[in-house]
């Protein structure tokens, strides 16, 4: 539904987006991750036609954003960063304007408007001027604006930024409920959000894509994926050397009586460890296999220092 082909953006001498290509299909929720200034918003602005790519292009449902910008934009719902809205209008007035701009008038307009209002939980504030709303409500007004015409492609720049935990939950549920029929791209700094709603993750650093995969597959890249975490009783001797002898074990970390065994690759380490423990009649107080950690993968991929830094 959405294909980006080698998008590049230069601001004077800053190369903000470097050769970014990806695809998003219907039913996918693509999480766009990256540190501040990585180029997430710039990429979204190119897709939505607010900025012209320095080179490269994209297709929205088959319509080229450069050759057929209007056709492409008709199929996009866009929530810009910081949720800009016309402050002096009422919520209803603003959404009516958007409906009209989307070519939805009369009955069709009213139906779409009602649906968007319901999904964004705005019933209570329809006649309130937008500048009297709290930040979370403004965000939802802008979200309502984005979904009003029921677009096949949704582009959301930090949709849950500034929302309270309940509202974050509401917005995530809303995204999930729409996911089946749309292709959705959202940027975020909240990694739990990615695990909660995204079917795929793109990580961008300094303008370049550094990762593209499912949250699970990315977590597998983590040093923590399939690591073994054990705690032994006080009187147990030093077992570091013993664990280091395991074929799958890359590294052992010891904190008093707690041992962390990191594998070369997630897989056989837990079985090997249990076999070793029973062979030596050792019984740990606690034994667990850890999952991969997205934050660690993120840090590793997006910081030059991250590649060598130790886990926390």
């Amino acid at each position, binding site marked *: 539904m959405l294909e980006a082909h080698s998008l590049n953006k230069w601001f004077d001498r800053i190369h903000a987006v470097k050769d970014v290509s990806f695809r998003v299909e219907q039913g996918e929720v693509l999480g766009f991750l990256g540190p501040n200034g990585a180029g997430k918003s710039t990429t979204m602005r190119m897709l*939505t036609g607010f900025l012209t790519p320095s080179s490269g292009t994209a297709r929205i449902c088959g319509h080229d954003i450069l050759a057929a910008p209007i056709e492409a934009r008709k*199929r996009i719902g866009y929530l810009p960063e910081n949720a*800009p809205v016309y402050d002096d209008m009422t919520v209803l007035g603003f959404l009516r*304007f958007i409906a009209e*701009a989307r070519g939805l008038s009369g009955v069709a307009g009213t139906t779409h408007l009602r649906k968007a209002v319901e999904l964004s939980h705005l019933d209570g504030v329809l006649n309130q001027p937008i500048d009297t709303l709290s930040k979370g409500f403004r965000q939802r007004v802008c979200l309502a*604006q984005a979904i009003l015409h029921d677009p096949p492609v949704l582009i959301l720049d930090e949709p849950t930024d500034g929302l309270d935990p309940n509202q974050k939950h509401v917005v995530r549920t809303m995204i999930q409920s729409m996911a089946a029929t749309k292709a959705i791209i959202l940027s975020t700094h909240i990694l739990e959000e990615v695990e909660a709603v995204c079917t795929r993750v793109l990580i961008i650093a300094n303008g370049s894509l550094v990762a593209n995969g499912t949250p699970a597959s990315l977590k597998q890249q983590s040093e923590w994926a399939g690591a073994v975490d054990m705690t032994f009783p006080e009187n147990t001797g030093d077992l570091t050397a013993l664990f280091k002898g395991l074929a799958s074990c890359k590294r052992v970390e010891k904190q008093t009586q707690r041992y962390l065994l990191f594998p070369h690759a997630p897989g056989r380490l837990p079985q090997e460890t249990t076999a070793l423990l029973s062979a030596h009649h050792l019984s740990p107080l606690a034994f667990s296999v850890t999952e991969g950690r997205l934050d660690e993968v993120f840090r590793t991929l997006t910081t030059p220092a991250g590649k060598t830094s130790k886990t926390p």
Partner: protein
Amino acid sequence: MDTAACPVKTVFKRELRSYFDSPIAYVFLVVFLMLTGFLTFSVSRLYEKGSADPWPFFFWHPWVYLIFVPAVSMRLWAEERRTGTLELLLTLPFTLTQAIIGKFLAAWAFLGIALGLTLTVPLSMVLLGGHPDAGVLLSGYLGSFGLAGALLAIGTWTSTLSRNQVVSFVLAVMLSVFLLLAGWPPITDLLARVAPPLAVRIISAFSFMPHYDSCLRGVLDLRDFAYFASVIVFMLTATHIVLENRKSA
């Protein structure tokens, strides 16, 4: 999933409504009306002459516009940029040209409303026993509206140059002063003493005043309106270029 039946109309309606959603619009209208009235009646002493000559009334319009029009235009694009709504507006399914025209026409219509309110001035002339020439009134009003449009187009362009409304206001006033004064007889007379006649002719050809003056003489000359129209087209094209360049900058 159609585009708006008429994107220009959609933008126009929103923009014009936004003027009246804020109390400043009403303050503007009142100040405009009072200022024109004051200058016409008190400074030009129109009523004392018991005259039916609308010339003193129209004489003041360019000078009121000089402040009033930039005050209306300064927010047109600067405000959209400052609040970020520009990103919303320019990603809706219509072209940049449609957005520019819609916003411009809304501001022009607002000026038209202000101008319409000054009809009370010729009306009071009639009430005071005068018989103003209807032809001169008509051409005067059309000329005044055309002049307002040309000045507005200048302000539209300057409002794209900065996020700061004050900057856009000052730039618009400066450009407008130049284009108004360049052909004003006292100035052209003064210029004629120091500059060769050809230079004076060229400078005054760019001026608004000769075109406005000919409207005030009751001559409805298409060339004067073509001039205002070409200033508008030129400045709106410049607006388009600035906004388009910023997209690909």
